[in-house]
């Protein structure tokens, strides 16, 4: 068959395919009628064959490029992720996928937990025994501000002043930002993540120790306990996500580094996304509940319940129907 003849016989199909493509790209493949879909798939395979023919006969770069372009568009339409309920996918992820994934990769979680608690505990105990040390870490003004802020249990004026919304927004932006950075910097061999974890740990430890030493322990801890359940855990999880990335670079195992990053990166981003969602919850608790005028006892009780909930969620959710871990064990 001659090139001209080839083009003139096949052209009709190409036009038809392009027509279907145009419609499908706007509507998604699922919205085409059944017959159209099977026509699409038939034409697509024919087009792939045409492209191979044009290549093997060397029938010109221009023609090849056009067919290549059509096949690329068809390919990307044909092999996309299956359509499905997005809300359902989100719910599934939060209810089962995320806690399962975390349990599969719990080694990273324990390491991140150690990085996030040990320096803070040491700093907290030292400063609690000797409050002057706190000034080596933070300026006196910042400490003074902390002290005045946490010397009382109640901080909001009324039931709803709008300040809660403001603070919630601030907490979301700030904390989720930190968590995402903590994850992303893991790609620097895990060092970036480790530094962020240790740094935040030291600051939190120092502030707690200082306030405890100054006698504000009760108001402070009653403030922190509720949202801390979500916030502190989520920071540790985002740290774990960063460490997943870091380990893929430092110790890729049987894979090349890029391959290891690609495989483990998916795990890491899911952990980071879950941590982000937890921080979103934490921000609302921190904005509305923690500073509210509820008696301290109630805050301690609710806070404890929240801790139990979070731990139970991470440890138990999705246990039923759990299969063997997909990823490699740490």
């Amino acid at each position: 068959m001659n090139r001209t003849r080839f083009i003139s016989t096949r052209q009709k199909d190409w036009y038809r395919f392009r027509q279907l493509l145009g419609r499908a790209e706007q509507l998604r493949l699922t919205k085409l009628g059944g017959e159209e879909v099977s026509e699409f798939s038939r034409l697509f395979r024919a087009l792939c064959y045409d492209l191979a023919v044009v290549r093997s006969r060397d029938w010109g770069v221009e023609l090849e490029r056009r067919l290549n372009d059509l096949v690329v568009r068809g390919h990307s339409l044909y092999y996309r992720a299956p359509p499905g309920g997005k809300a359902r996918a989100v719910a599934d992820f939060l209810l089962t996928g995320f806690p399962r994934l975390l349990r599969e990769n719990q080694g990273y979680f324990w390491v991140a937990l150690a990085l996030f608690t040990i320096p803070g505990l040491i700093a907290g105990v030292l400063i609690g025994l000797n409050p002057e040390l706190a000034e080596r870490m933070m300026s006196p003004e910042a400490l003074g501000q902390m002290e005045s802020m946490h010397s009382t249990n109640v901080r909001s004026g009324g039931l709803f002043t709008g300040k809660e919304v403001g603070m919630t927004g601030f907490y979301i932006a700030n904390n989720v930002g930190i968590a995402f950075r903590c994850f992303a910097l893991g790609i620097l061999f895990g060092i970036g993540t480790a530094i962020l974890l240790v740094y935040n740990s030291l600051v939190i430890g120092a502030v707690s120790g200082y306030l405890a030493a100054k006698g504000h322990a009760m108001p402070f801890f009653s403030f922190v306990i509720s949202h801390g359940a979500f916030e502190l855990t989520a920071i540790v999880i985002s740290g774990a996500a960063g460490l997943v990335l870091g380990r893929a670079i430092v110790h890729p195992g049987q894979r090349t580094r890029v391959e290891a990053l690609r495989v483990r990166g998916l795990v890491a981003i899911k952990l980071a996304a879950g941590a982000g969602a937890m921080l979103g919850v934490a921000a609302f608790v921190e904005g509305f509940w923690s500073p509210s005028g509820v008696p301290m006892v109630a805050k301690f009780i609710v806070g404890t319940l929240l801790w139990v909930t979070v731990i139970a969620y991470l440890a138990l959710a999705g246990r039923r129907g759990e299969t063997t871990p997909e990823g490699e064990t740490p």
Partner: protein
Amino acid sequence: MVAPPDAIATPIDSHVHVETPENVWLSFRPAGLGPRMWAYFIDFCIGIGIIIVLAIVVSLLSPILQISAAHQGILAVGSFAVMFFYYVLFEYFWDGRSPGKKAARIRVIKVAGYPISFWDAFLRNLLRTADMLLPFYGVGMLVMLGTRRMQRLGDLVAGTFVVHEEREVVRGYPPWVHGVPAIPTSEMSHAYQPSERTLDLIETFLTRAQRLSRERADEIAHILAGPLRDKLGYWDPNNEHLQSPGWFLLRVLRTFVYPPTDSQPGHHVPLPSLPVPPPSSSPYGQYQSGGEGPYGGSGAPPTSAPPAVPSHPSWGPK
């Protein structure tokens, strides 16, 4: 016949090849720094614009709705969302294109050639933090320059890369036919119509001859040129079939397969007229006069335009 592209030792262009389940390979052109920086610039401006508009709206509304205390928080969430989710959402819902990428005609795809998923979009965009570690995406740029698909760190981890969107208008016939004078009927004494197989052979030969030296191509063309001239009864004033037989075959092809004026009956699409290549200003003119291209330069009759059109690297001399 078709060598799988990976078998070619060192590719001379930047195309990236992906094999599909249909056993054809697709070629993609990775987008380099230029278009990506342009896209980033546009997206950056849009992001700033969104935050400014949000700030104006909030400051106008806050006295009315009594939300002045929430003002800061709303802005904080807004800029946070723009910073982290602008790209994620656009790239996910628009098949790998943010508004800036759309304007720059580039798109993010998976290295296997299909569209990115939500997690890919999320991953490659959260890792911007790491790519931005040195000023002006320094880390990202360095990594991009070192990878064949021009991926920054986020792309490497997500298994994605950014490609040019090809939307090329196609010409009906090979560019090197352009400007070749057909053989006038008055110069042929026999009403001979070359068979389809012959014409096909000529076309295939001429396509491949672009990669041969002119001498070698003429040597091969010579085998067919003589008998063909006899059958056509072409009186050949310049003794073309001996002097440059390849050129003669090209004119035959032009006469019978790609007639210059009237398109053939039954042809679905009229052959579009081609832009005339710049005669000597193009850098390829020198190659042709240097005699490197098979049918360019000194061998061709001086009356006609050089046949080789440098529209694509593979048409140029190799």
